[in-house]
C-alpha cells in the first residue's frame, strides 16, 4: 500500500478499501491536524475537525474526480475539506462565545486569563507568555482573516492557492492579509 501515491489511495478509498484509508490517514493526519490547530487554536476542536474531515473523506472519496470537470489532487481536495470542517467548528456557538470572551478580556488587558480558557492545562504550563499573547491576538481576528493569514503565513501557500481555497478573489485575499497583519501588529506592539 505504501507504494501507491495519494491520488491512487484515494481512489481505492472510494471503492471502500479500509487499508488504503488507514495508509492515507497515517501518512497525513499529523499534517492536517497541524493545519486545523492553527485555524482553531484548540487541541480539542482541531481533533474534532480532523476527525470529521477524515469521516467525510471516507464517505465522499467515491465522489472525488467524478463530480468535477477539472480534477483536483488529493492535497487540494482534502485541504478544502479540512478548511470547511474548521469553519463548521468555528460556527458552533461555543466558539463564538469563546472568541467574544477573549476579545472582551483583551480590551481590558486581561490577555492571559482569556487565553487560559482556550488552552489545555498541560499546554498552558509549557507555553511561553509570547505564545499566549500571539494565540489570543490570532483568536480575536475575524474568522476569514484568521484562515487567510494561517494559509498564507503558517502554511506558506501562494496568494492564488490560498484565495482559491477560501473562494475569494486575489484582491479580496490580499485585503484580508493586510487587515489581519495590521490587527496583529497593533495587538502585539509591545512584543516587537
Amino acid at each position, binding site marked *: 500500500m505504501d507504494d501507491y501515491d495519494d491520488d491512487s489511495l484515494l481512489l481505492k478509498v472510494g471503492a471502500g478499501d479500509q487499508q488504503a484509508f488507514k495508509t492515507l*490517514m497515517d501518512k497525513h*493526519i499529523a499534517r492536517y491536524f497541524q493545519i486545523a490547530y492553527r485555524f482553531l487554536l484548540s487541541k480539542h476542536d482541531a481533533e474534532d475537525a480532523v*476527525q470529521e474531515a477524515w469521516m467525510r473523506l471516507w*464517505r465522499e472519496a467515491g465522489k472525488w474526480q467524478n463530480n468535477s470537470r477539472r480534477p483536483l489532487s488529493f492535497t487540494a481536495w482534502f485541504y478544502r475539506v479540512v478548511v470547511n470542517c474548521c469553519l463548521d467548528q468555528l460556527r458552533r456557538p461555543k466558539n463564538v462565545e469563546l472568541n467574544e470572551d477573549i476579545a472582551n478580556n483583551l480590551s481590558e488587558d486581561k490577555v492571559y486569563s482569556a487565553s487560559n480558557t482556550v488552552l489545555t492545562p498541560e499546554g498552558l504550563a509549557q507555553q*511561553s507568555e509570547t505564545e499566549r499573547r500571539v494565540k489570543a491576538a490570532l483568536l480575536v481576528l475575524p474568522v476569514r482573516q484568521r484562515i487567510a493569514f494561517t494559509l498564507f503565513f503558517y502554511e506558506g501557500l501562494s496568494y492564488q492557492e490560498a484565495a482559491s481555497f477560501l473562494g475569494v478573489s486575489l484582491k479580496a485575499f490580499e485585503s484580508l492579509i493586510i487587515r489581519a497583519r495590521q490587527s496583529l*501588529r497593533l495587538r502585539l506592539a509591545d*512584543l516587537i
Partner: protein
Amino acid sequence: MVDKKKLHCMIENFGADTKKWPDSSKMLHQHMQDSYLSQDQELAATLSKEKKLDAVLRHVYVPAISASLAQQICQQIRAEHSKQKAGSLFKFQEYQLDTWNKLKIWVKSRLRAYVLMSASLMVFISGGWVLGQHYQQTDLEVGDFYADPALIMIVED
C-alpha cells in the same frame, strides 16, 4: 525612482519577506528591491520591526495529536462500513424475502384451488354413491319374484 512611502506600506502590509509579496505589488526587480531596502535606514528599521513581528507570530506551538485519534477514526470507519454492509445485506434479504413470499402465496393459492377442486369432486362422488346405495336397496330385482311366493301371487293376479 523608487517610491519609498509605497515600499514602507508594502513591508507593513505583506511582511519582511519580499519574496512573499504579491506579484502585482512588486515594484522593482527582487535584487534591486532588497539592496534598496538595506541601504535606506528608515526602511531597514521598518523591515527589522516586521521581521520581529514575523518571529513573534511563529511562536505558536502545535501540540502533538492524540495517539488514540487515528484509532478512533478507524473504529468509526469500521462501524460505518459494517453498517453499510448490513444495510446492503438487508436490502438483498428483503428482495429475497419478497420473492419467497410471492412464491409462497402463489403455491398456497394453487394448492388451495387443487384441494378445493378435489374435495368438491370427492363430495360429489361420495354423494352420488350414497344416493345410489339408497335407491339401489328399494329397487326390485327379477329374482325377487321367484323367491317370494307372495309376490308371485300378486303378479299372477
